[in-house]
């Protein structure tokens, strides 16, 4: 993939030593920051925002990606955008966070020739596992990974539908690093930037397609 002007600037700039997060796909190959990849808007219009009922968390606006999956073109565009970014990047593992990471991770893994590794909640995986805890609003939860699924030296992506606080992604990064893998990037369809999840990714870059404020 050829570098845009913005990419070159970041490579040469002393600011690169700090954490610079390049928002994916807001730049075209010509480096024109105003022009977004045209597929992005098509995806964004398919995401349904649902106000949660009392039985769930009252008043929370839920970003529902199931409506993207109902549109074959929007779903294909979502996968294509990530595949185009990663296929020449020697990624050997795509790790997907249960359960909506399982919807996007495997198609990406298949297209780029990588293994797919599911990271579910406890007691789902049948073999020997390691786990990493993360905080919820009240209490903790855990992500698990099979021992042996990921090896030292693997180059990994972590995929989920959405990044909010970054807690689960951070737990995923920890799991992968504990077995000696290198986390290259986290990839999400949606970011809720006001929750500052980007700050909790242990310095790893985030690629997202759509942000909601």
């Amino acid at each position: 993939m050829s570098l845009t002007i913005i990419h070159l600037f970041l490579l040469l700039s002393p600011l690169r030593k700090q954490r610079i997060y390049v928002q994916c796909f807001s730049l075209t190959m010509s480096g024109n920051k105003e022009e977004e990849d045209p597929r992005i808007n098509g995806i964004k219009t398919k995401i349904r925002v649902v106000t949660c009922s009392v039985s769930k968390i009252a008043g929370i606006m839920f970003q529902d990606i199931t409506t993207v999956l109902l549109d074959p073109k929007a779903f294909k565009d979502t996968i294509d955008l990530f595949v185009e970014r990663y296929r020449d990047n020697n990624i050997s593992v795509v790790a997907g966070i249960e359960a909506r990471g399982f919807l996007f991770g495997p198609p990406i893994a298949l297209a780029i020739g990588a293994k797919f590794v599911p990271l579910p909640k406890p007691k789902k995986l049948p073999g020997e596992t390691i786990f990493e805890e993360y905080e919820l609003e009240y209490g903790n939860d855990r992500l698990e990974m099979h021992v042996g699924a990921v090896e030292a030296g693997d180059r990994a992506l972590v995929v989920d539908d959405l990044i909010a606080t970054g807690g689960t992604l951070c737990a995923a990064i920890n799991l992968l690093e504990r077995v000696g893998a290198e986390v290259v990037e986290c990839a999400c369809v949606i970011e809720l930037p006001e929750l500052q999840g980007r700050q909790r990714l242990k310095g790893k870059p985030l690629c997202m397609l759509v942000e909601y404020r």
Partner: protein
Amino acid sequence: KEKERETMFAAENGLKGDPRLEAISAAIRVVPNFPKKGIMFQDITTLLLDHKAFKHTIDIFVDRYKDMQISVVAGVEARGFMFGPSIALAIGAKFVPLRKPGKLPGKVISESYELEYGHDRLEMHVDAVKPLERVIIIDDLVATGGTLSAAISLMESQGAEVVECACVIGLPEVKGQHKLKGKPLYVLVEPSGLDEFC
């Protein structure tokens, strides 16, 4: 074509001797005594680690369904999610997740099914499937067929037509049958042999 079909297995339905089936079977790990003693759990996570074998799995389903005017691939949470979307993408169909209760954010319909002890429910968004749509339902494994039967009921309640249920693995309880609630069942492999994983 329907009259010739005796069993649900791919090897007896056009793919006899296909080396891809061997590769898929070999990639599936058996975990004894999970989730409880006496059960030989068929672990497909090792299939997902084998890129070639995983691709073969998807390719076989895609080859089968791509010319059948399928407009919906429905996948049962959570392992159906690992196969269904790739098939949907390749055949140009919608993907519809069928989930445990309380996970889907919008208005849902639900269908209950029996577990060994008690019941569980499968939910689907009300607007996901339209009448007369042609549907494939995907899961990693079929045992008693309870979950798939609930999925079929969900689809039919919306006026959609279930063309086939497709699974990677079919357990002995279902062997010899090739229909579930009157719907055809298509399965790639039988359970893998005992305790190969080291």
